[in-house]
């Protein structure tokens, strides 16, 4: 009886259907990411319109690029009225954009310096390399100075020996007291640099002359000068910035006030005014008759400028540390410097890596401002190149090349900071 009640029961599964074409593969992706709603569709269409606009206006310009031309007139002849980039100017003048008016037969010196710089920076940037390479990084500044400016090698050597003198003095006096040793080391090094290094350099140079032709600072230019100022500023501004940050949150009111005053002053004025101070006013502040190198002045100002920003970034890192870290360091009985060096600074610096690298990038970009005080950085040189009758009227190619170079440097730095952040990450998320 009940058999008749059951109308129909399926005994086997239906074959699985393929999903609708709009729900798989590229179609689904397009629907979900590009046309999921009216606003989204509008944005997509706008985006495509922008891309189309760029392609129409810049496409032919890139497509008709001309690399082999000795003047703008020749370029225009080849192009015959069409739109096209004349990269011939880069091919013709790339050495000037990179080296400025550095003598052509000495180009090997900045080139070698650049590659040595990479070697010197490598152990600082990447932990996997042998620590012994740090020794090369330590002597690199003196070596670079000698290679770039030339003159006798002995001045660089004796300048570096000042650090050895300081170390020897420190070890000798360490038995007496830590403070005395530090003061003694500083005094010994200063005496060495001011009184002994110069005459000794002269003496040895007259006996064993090892020298390169001397190049004046006026001949420096192009990306070389950007990199010199940028790298020196970066290397110097970090330690000074850290010291300023420590000073700013010190318990000693006098130290704190002076640091706050310095930081706020530097951060409150544009870099241009500081650079003008370096070029116009510095002679007022120094003893009569002193006249020191314009590149050195700029480096000092750029360093001070970046250091003030660095101080704020590092202070942010310190502020983000939990109070317990300070208390733990105190509870372990560490003194101030040990607590900073072993407990607080490593954590604070790790937190502030993005800010620090942003400051570095800012500093590197700000090196372009030196054009205002007559140093021929790439932008200054682009004007100089245009002053040549062959290339009079060329604009975009030069700017595009300069922008590309800056982009590569700065983008590389920001990528490195992301790598470093990932490497130092200790939280388990």
């Amino acid at each position, binding site marked *: 009886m009940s058999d008749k009640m059951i109308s129909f029961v399926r005994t086997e599964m239906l074959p699985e259907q393929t999903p609708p074409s709009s729900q798989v593969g590229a179609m689904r992706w397009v629907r979900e990411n590009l046309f999921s709603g009216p606003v989204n569709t509008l*944005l997509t269409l706008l985006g495509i319109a922008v*891309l189309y606009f760029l392609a129409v206006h810049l496409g032919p310009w890139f497509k008709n690029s001309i690399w082999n031309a000795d003047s703008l007139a020749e370029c225009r002849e080849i192009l015959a009225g069409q739109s096209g980039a004349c990269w011939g100017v880069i091919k013709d003048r790339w050495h000037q954009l990179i080296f400025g008016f550095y003598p052509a037969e000495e180009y090997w010196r900045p080139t070698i310096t650049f590659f040595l710089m990479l070697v010197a920076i490598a152990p600082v940037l990447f932990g996997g390399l042998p620590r012994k390479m740090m020794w090369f990084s330590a002597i690199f500044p003196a070596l670079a100075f000698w290679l770039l400016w030339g003159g006798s090698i002995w001045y660089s050597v004796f300048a570096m020996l000042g650090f050895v003198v300081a170390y020897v003095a420190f070890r000798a006096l360490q038995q007496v007291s830590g403070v005395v040793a530090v003061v003694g080391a500083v005094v010994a090094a200063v005496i060495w640099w001011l009184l002994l290094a110069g005459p000794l350099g002269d003496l040895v140079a007259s006996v064993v002359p090892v020298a390169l032709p001397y190049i004046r600072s006026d001949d420096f230019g192009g990306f070389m000068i950007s990199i010199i100022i940028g790298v020196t500023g970066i290397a110097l501004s970090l330690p000074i910035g850290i010291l300023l940050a420590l000073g700013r949150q010190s*318990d000693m009111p006098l130290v704190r006030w002076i640091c706050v005053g310095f930081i706020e002053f530097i951060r409150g004025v544009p870099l*241009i005014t500081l650079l*003008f101070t370096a070029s116009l*006013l510095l002679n007022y502040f120094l003893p*009569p008759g002193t006249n020191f190198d314009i590149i050195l002045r700029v480096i000092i100002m750029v360093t001070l400028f970046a250091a003030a920003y660095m101080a704020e970034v590092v202070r942010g890192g310190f502020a983000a540390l939990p109070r317990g870290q300070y208390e733990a360091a105190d509870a372990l009985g560490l003194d101030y410097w040990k607590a900073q060096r072993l407990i607080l600074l490593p954590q604070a610096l790790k937190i502030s890596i993005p800010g620090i690298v942003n400051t570095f990038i800012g500093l590197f970009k700000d090196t372009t401002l030196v054009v205002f005080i007559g140093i021929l950085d790439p*932008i200054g040189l682009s004007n100089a190149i245009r002053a040549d009758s062959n290339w009079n009227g060329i604009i975009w190619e030069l700017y595009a090349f300069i922008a590309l170079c800056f*982009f590569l440097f700065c983008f590389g730095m920001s990528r490195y900071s992301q790598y470093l952040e990932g490497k130092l990450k200790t939280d388990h998320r």
Partner: protein
Amino acid sequence: MATSSEIPGASFRLSMLIYDTRYRSITIQIVFLFLFMAGFAWLVDNTLTNLAEKGKDIDFSFLGMRAGYDINQRLVDYTNDSSHLRAWIVGLLNTLVLAFCACVTATVIGVIAGVLRLSKNWIVSKLMTVYVELFRNVPLLLWIIVIFAVLTEVTPAPNAFRGETPSASMLLFDSVAVTNRGTYIPSLLFGRSLGDVNLGLITVSTNYFILLLVLIGSIWGYRKLQSDALKQQEATGIRPTTWWKSLLILTLPLTIALMAMGAHLEYPALKGFNFQGGGYIRNSFIAMWLALTVYTGAFIAENVRSGILAVSRGQSEAAFALGLRPGRTMSLVVLPQALRVIIPPLISQYLNITKNTSLALAVGYMDLRATLGGITLNQTGRELESMLLMMLTYLVISLVISGGMNVYNSAVKLKER
């Protein structure tokens, strides 16, 4: 019961100045102060010696003397007979106007780019990423020069607008002309002008003053309307319709005021070799404005993005669980919390804009640095005084902005235990 904490026989010895932590900080501070003062005295002494050697002194009376140079962009009256002090003010106002305009537009661009970079739309988010990375990683100076070059090289000359079939045409219903000499826009004229009021240093147009008052009154009325509506909604649960009232409150008084003063637009027209009438914005200003906008906009976009990402996912998930639509989730839940993170870096971007206006040197915009720190400095030969005044001016502007930031920060700070 000898619980004295004093160390027996601990009389003061000189070495305690270094080894005893109670005294060491005082020693360090005194040494530090001594070194600082010595350094400072050394600088001052050098400066005085150098000045004496050059036969100069420190004297600010040059500010009262006749400037003798023209400033092609000015907000207040200035002729070359005016004093250096007035040139300083003209430059300062130019700096402030540029900074203000750039702050406003950079914020708009930055917020849009930052939000769009987080969009699910692949094309848009990638375009915004390219925009942000491109502008953040290339120096501002280069952008200023490039944009200035675009404005002067790509835009048509005024005579391209001439003739039966001109090769260039004016934008926005024949009201705006973009030329290689600058941009000509319509200007607002008043048929029944109320005249100007001279306040000593600056002249204030009564017309604009009244318009400003009317606008402030309208905004006050609008806010009153909104708060009344909110009160009623809280009391009865029904929100009264306000949109047409707010529209009326915001537009009607302004329209009446404009009509009462006989306001009309004067359009630029090609006469002779150039456009006449209307308003004229120089390319130097536009180039600075655009460059500061797009450059700082990229930075602000990153601040906005990180601010939005800083709001934990649980917040927006909770809002969705309550049934709020994405738009209201953004405006009611995410943005108020993100703002607390966004505002401090945003203000420091405003500071950067203000300081970066000094790059106007590259395009010849007459800002503070070009007047006081440029022509005045060169004409009078008073480097020390001019630079000092210029730095102080920038410093005051910066301190005012960062002071505002501190006030805001303490106002929105999470109230903790």
